[in-house]
């Protein structure tokens, strides 16, 4: 496997579309959206982006929900997306090299990296599984 495959642009990973919700959305509705099974998300979504005036402002992950809501026995009916999200997440653009995503995932312990445009509007999201799927194309099949 040649390291140069990691220097290709992130759009080679075929990023998912950026599902996003407003910061003031009730958390129960955000959770319902993450739980929805679709053709693209056959086991629901592990993360949902949060926006304010169409610009990325946060991310809610399944880990956030376990740690900040369930383990603390908080009532999701009394919370908003903004109260549970991780604010100002690390972002990349679709033109950045894949190796930057690896760098962030490793040092930040992130599984999801939002992709934004020059106006900080979300355009997609990549996951650690996308990286593995990409790499698998360059090693032998089982």
């Amino acid at each position: 496997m040649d390291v140069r495959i990691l220097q290709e642009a992130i759009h080679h990973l075929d990023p998912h579309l950026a599902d996003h919700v407003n910061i003031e959305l009730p958390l129960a509705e955000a959770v319902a959206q993450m739980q929805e099974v679709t053709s693209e998300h056959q086991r629901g979504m592990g993360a949902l982006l949060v926006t304010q005036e169409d610009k990325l402002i946060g991310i809610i992950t399944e880990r956030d929900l376990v740690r900040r809501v369930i383990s603390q026995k908080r009532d999701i009916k009394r919370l908003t997306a903004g109260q549970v999200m991780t604010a100002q997440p690390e972002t990349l653009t679709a033109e950045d090299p894949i190796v930057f995503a690896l760098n962030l995932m490793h040092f930040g312990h992130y599984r999801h990296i939002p992709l934004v445009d020059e106006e900080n509007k979300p355009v997609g999201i990549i996951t650690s599984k996308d990286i593995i799927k990409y790499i698998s194309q360059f090693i032998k099949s089982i």
Partner: protein
Amino acid sequence: MPFESFVDDEISTMQEQLNESGRALETHEIQVPLGSIMHHVPSVLSGASVQDVINLMVSHDIGSIFVVSDESLKGIIGERDILLKVLNKLGDYANLSVDHFMKCDPLTLKPEDLLDTAIQHMAQGGFRHIPIVDDQHRPLGMVSVRHIISYLIEHFPQEVLTLPPKPIRNAMRAREGA
């Protein structure tokens, strides 16, 4: 001319560094046994409560837990299972048995199986975690996507660790008034 010679030397050095950075991940580095890169994952007994699992996930900062019965792996339960099957769906879930929510009989590999095999299974199955078991199906550890990414970074330190904190954007934008 000395200056031109200096520039030629610099270009030659940069070219050598560029070629060196195109190093391939050698076959032996991809065909590393999973036993050497797996990590420990805590277990709960079959019948344990969902609350026990959540407490372990938080205290160990981990996203997946083994469920065992008679020391044998029975299933795994992850954050996604909690999100999909518990949150917003059940009134009082804390005392419910984890067996209702776990993934039963997950795909497993052996410690002598190789990293490229794990990568292919993860890619094809959409898994983030693969339990590693012995011949008696007792869990020995877990291989996760996160740890595979970390392993790749360890083998490409020059390409990753020397990156700037953020991608350099518009670096060639012309200066005004210089």
